[in-house]
Every structure is written in C-alpha cells, then in structure tokens.
C-alpha cells in the first residue's frame, strides 16, 4: 500500500483507523466497552472537579456531561477523544512525518 496511495489520503486513513479502533474493540468485547465507559466517567468527573472543586454542583454537572457524552454520544465521543489523545500526546507529528515522502511516492510510481 505504501507509496501507492496519495499521502494525504493515507494520512486521513491512518487517523480514521486510529480513531475507530477503540470503537471496534468496544463492539467486539463488551468488557472493553464498560472499561471505556468507566474511564470516560472518571475523566469527565476529574475534568469538572478540577474546575468546580468538590461539591454537589460538581456531581450534577458531571452527571449531565457523562449522560450526554458517555452514554448518549458514546460513538461520537470515543473517536474524538482518541483524536484528542493522538494530537495532545504528540503522536500526530510522528504520523505526519512518518508518511512516505515525495521521493518514495515517485520511486514507487516509477517501479
């Protein structure tokens, strides 16, 4: 495949695959889905707690956000969170610069 696909399409494909891998695993293994749900609940709660501190408001806002993002919009939130992880951890740079360069594509086309 390397060199035969335009790099931009390959790049988008890599990102999309990395984004949907957890969804596929969640569909295949129920335990993984519950693990993801628990992880996202903790993440959302800690995010709200960091801003609002401990208290009843924190629990209410966390509950609303968990209902919206983790329960209702699970299939949208998981890929977006994966994209956020890829970008914030700096893996996007590795992916972008790891793409086949102009020379590689031309060499592959010449072959």
């Amino acid at each position, binding site marked *: 495949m390397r060199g035969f696909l*335009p*790099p*931009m399409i*390959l*790049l988008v494909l890599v990102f999309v695959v990395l984004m949907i891998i957890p969804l596929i695993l969640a569909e295949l293994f129920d335990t993984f889905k519950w693990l993801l749900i628990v992880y996202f609940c903790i993440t959302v709660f800690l*995010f*709200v707690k960091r*801003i*609002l501190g401990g208290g009843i408001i924190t629990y209410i*806002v966390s509950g*609303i*956000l968990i209902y*919206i*993002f983790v329960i*209702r*919009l699970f299939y*949208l939130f998981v890929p977006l969170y994966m994209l*956020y992880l890829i*970008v*914030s951890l*700096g893996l*996007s*740079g590795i992916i*972008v*610069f790891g*793409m*086949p*360069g*102009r*020379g*590689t*594509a*031309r*060499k592959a086309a010449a072959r």
Partner: protein
Amino acid sequence: MDPLTILASLNPLDWLLKPATDIMDSVNLLILGFKIVVLLFIVQFVRGRFGGGPIVTILILVLGYVMLFSNLAPIFTTAMFIYLFIIFGFSMLVMDLVIAKPWAGGGGGEEEGGHTTGREYSERLAKNRAVRGRF
C-alpha cells in the same frame, strides 16, 4: 386488516424522518454539552482571575449569558471553538501538516538528498551503464 390501515400503522414518513430526527437530537445534545463545557471554561477563567465570592458568581452568570445565549453567541462560540482547538494542540497538527505538505506528495525526497538504498543505487548504476553502452 385493511391495507391502508396497515400502511398507516407502519407510517413510512416516520421511517424516512427518523434518522434525520435522531441526528438532529444528537446535534442538539452535542451543542448542549459544548455549551456546558464552555460555561465550565468561563468559570475556570473568572475564578482564576478574581477568586471566589458572590460578585464573581454574578460575573460568571453575565459572561455565560453573553457568550452562550445573547445575539453575540455565534461569534463567541466560534472564538471559543478556535480557542479549544488551540489549547488541545490541534494547531500543532496544522503546523506539522504545513511543514510536511502531504498534499504535495510529502516533504524531502530525492531532490533534497533523501535516502537511497543500496539496491536502488545499483539499479540506477546499471541503468546508467546500459544507457552509456548504447552510444
């Protein structure tokens, strides 16, 4: 049963519109979630600058109303969206893309001294010899 009654009970219009209404429900939920997140960022910003107290709470409510529900909401929401993109590090991704230029076939390559494997070098050498031998 009368076929028309069966058709009415199936309600094909509902079938057609259900995916659209489901998507709209999801979009509305997403917007609501985004607004709550923006409100949390406003709370963080105001508390970080002015500490706690009743005046700060009023300020948070006023800012929240202006940024989320007033006529200026679309402008502020767009700005907030861009701000979130920047703080989540998506600007780095854009910069990487601009530097690497994958839409132009990627950066680097042979012209700028890219790597050549031994096999490619020997192939090129053999091709050159063949060309030279022809003349």
